[in-house]
């Protein structure tokens, strides 16, 4: 062993140290990926484990029992969620798609930036403040909490998601498509409505599905608008229940049967969200092999 180090030795040791650090950092990055997926896996595991025992038909067909009595179900919440999410989608999606069309097809580039910016701003508004807004807009003047107010709050929440996706999807429609139509003398609006939008329909549908999945799980904006209902109600001018509201009440309560039903209702919501996400994946994969 020679005491003196050659340049090659130093470079070699230096290189080894660099490679060791490289390996370490790569390992850490793998770890962070693991850390990122673990919560989801744990959450899914527990939702399935705790939710399955109460995941029975009676969960969907029965109304809540009086406090302290076991049994019953969350039918009012299932019905209410269907109505409010449906109506919220029905109100919000057309506005969102048309706003997306305006941003991409009509606005000048500067105005488009403004619209896009506004859409992003709306996406960033905390959902609880939307609840406050709709309370002032509908609940206080109508003198009743209502399914309508809940649906409007959800409609506001779905707009940014769908508008943004519409905007992005329209951008992917090749310019040549529009030019071909223009060249044949098709008016611009007809080109958009009959040629451009249909070519982007799969992508837009993806956005709608994502938006529906998002609003189906929203609780905060419903606290002051739909309020909740322990009986099955289909009236839009009366308080209405929703699955997330019911989960919130049941999760923070003391009763064992409430907890079981909260888990089961969560399982339903999670299945819905997972299912929707998988659908969008499939839609997107079918659409194009390009980067996603």
């Amino acid at each position, binding site marked *: 062993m020679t005491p003196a180090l050659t340049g090659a030795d130093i470079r070699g040791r230096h290189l080894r140290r660099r490679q060791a650090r490289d390996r370490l950092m790569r390992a850490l990055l793998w770890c962070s990926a693991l850390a990122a997926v673990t919560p989801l896996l744990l959450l899914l595991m527990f939702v399935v484990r705790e939710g399955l025992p109460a995941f029975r038909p009676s969960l969907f067909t029965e109304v*809540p*029992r*009086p*406090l*302290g*009595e076991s049994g019953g179900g969350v039918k009012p919440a299932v019905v209410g969620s269907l109505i409010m999410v449906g109506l919220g989608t029905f109100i919000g999606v057309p506005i969102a798609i048309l706003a997306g069309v305006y941003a991409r097809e009509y606005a000048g580039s500067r105005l488009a930036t403004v619209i896009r910016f506004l859409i992003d701003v709306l996406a960033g508004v905390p959902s609880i403040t939307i609840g406050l807004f709709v309370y002032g807009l509908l*609940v*206080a003047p109508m*003198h*009743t*909490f209502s399914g309508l107010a809940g649906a409007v709050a959800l409609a506001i929440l779905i707009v940014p998601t769908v508008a943004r996706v519409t905007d992005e999807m329209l951008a992917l429609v090749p310019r040549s498509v529009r030019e071909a139509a223009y060249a044949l003398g098709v008016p611009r609006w007809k080109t958009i409505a009959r040629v451009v939008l249909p070519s982007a329909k799969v992508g837009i549908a993806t956005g709608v599905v994502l938006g529906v999945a998002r609003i189906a799980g929203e609780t905060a904006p419903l606290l002051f608008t739909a*309020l*909740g*209902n*322990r*009986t*099955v*109600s289909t*009236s839009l*001018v*009366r*308080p209405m229940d929703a699955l997330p509201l019911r989960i919130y*009440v049941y999760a*923070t*309560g*003391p*009763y064992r049967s409430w907890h079981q039903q909260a888990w089961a209702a969560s399982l339903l919501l999670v299945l819905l969200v997972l299912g929707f996400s998988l659908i969008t994946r499939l839609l997107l994969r079918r659409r194009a092999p390009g980067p996603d």
Partner: protein
Amino acid sequence: MLTIRRRIFAALAAGGALAALLLVSACSNGGSAATPTSQTGTPAATGTSPAATSSVTPPTNIGKDDKAQVTGAGSTAIFPFLSKIADIYQKDVAKGVSINYQSIGSGGGIAQFTQKTVDFGASDIYLSDKQMQDIGAPVLNVPMIHWAVAVTYNIPNFKSELRFSPSTIAGIWLGNIKKWNDPAIKADNPNVSLPDLPITPMHRSDGSGTTMNFTSFLAGTSPDWKSKVGAGLSVNWPQGPGGKGSEGVTALVKQTAGAIGYVELSYALQNNLPVGAVKNAAGNYVKPTLQSTTDAVAATVATAPADLRFLIVNPPASHPDAYPIGASTWVLLYKDYPASKSSEVKAMVHFFWWAIHDGQKYATSIDYSPMAPDLVKKVEVALKSITVGGQPVLP
């Protein structure tokens, strides 16, 4: 379109109610809690002349042909009782009536009643003069039921029953008593070996009548509490976690070793949590039970004023077996409702009419104390004064 639908509903319900009224008008029975009426109309009634005047007490099942959805919100303490009787009412009396009650806390009941967003509010504390003024329309405080504020705790592997003096309770929530084996708790429980476990006092994060009754009790018995915290629906808590509603506090106590909380009795018992005995004015440690609550009620309610506003905490020493933290829940009603709400209001008043009579008998099975006959009489007068569009709802 909506108004048309509402009108049709109103017409249907009004017609139904009228028919029911004619059928059973002779079947009046004095209306005391002790004599439940038959659940169906009596055929014999058809023969008698419809001479019903306001002095005649209508049958308790007067609302059996109503069809409406009634919305109420407020007190979480009455929720177990109200959900039970609403369920029975819909099953056995009026199939077409659903009572949608949201337990958002007494503060919420008062707030939403004031905002006129619900048909009725429910609160464990009557409306103050100022609150009634703010509403700007005549309102009624209608008592429904009595109950006890239980001091409940969660000490793992601990079987003994604990006793608390008011100053100990105040000390725990003020944060002066930090461990379960504190000398103050030992003094109340000389023969019990207490663990060296931190105490976590839980309180209500929402505006709560349970809090109001509990803090009124403490303010009335502990000068320290009165000067530092005071009494209210929601006070400036010195420490500890807050749970939403009686449900939330019960859940927190259940999930936390070393926790102590105050909730309506049935929440504690339904969840198998132990409840402590509390020292009353006579110096006795009394457990919250049906009997001890009824004793507490008897001390005050006999002298209840005509406006039905009273508190039953700290009954005098002349009632040695009374539990010191009794409470009542009031239903908050407007004296006059708009005619557009006719069907809802009729269904609601009929339901409460049934609730103060037949409904009371379901109280004891879930640890509430029914109202005394004297009080029911006073409540009858209040319910009869309610009008919809100027017309009285009850005959």
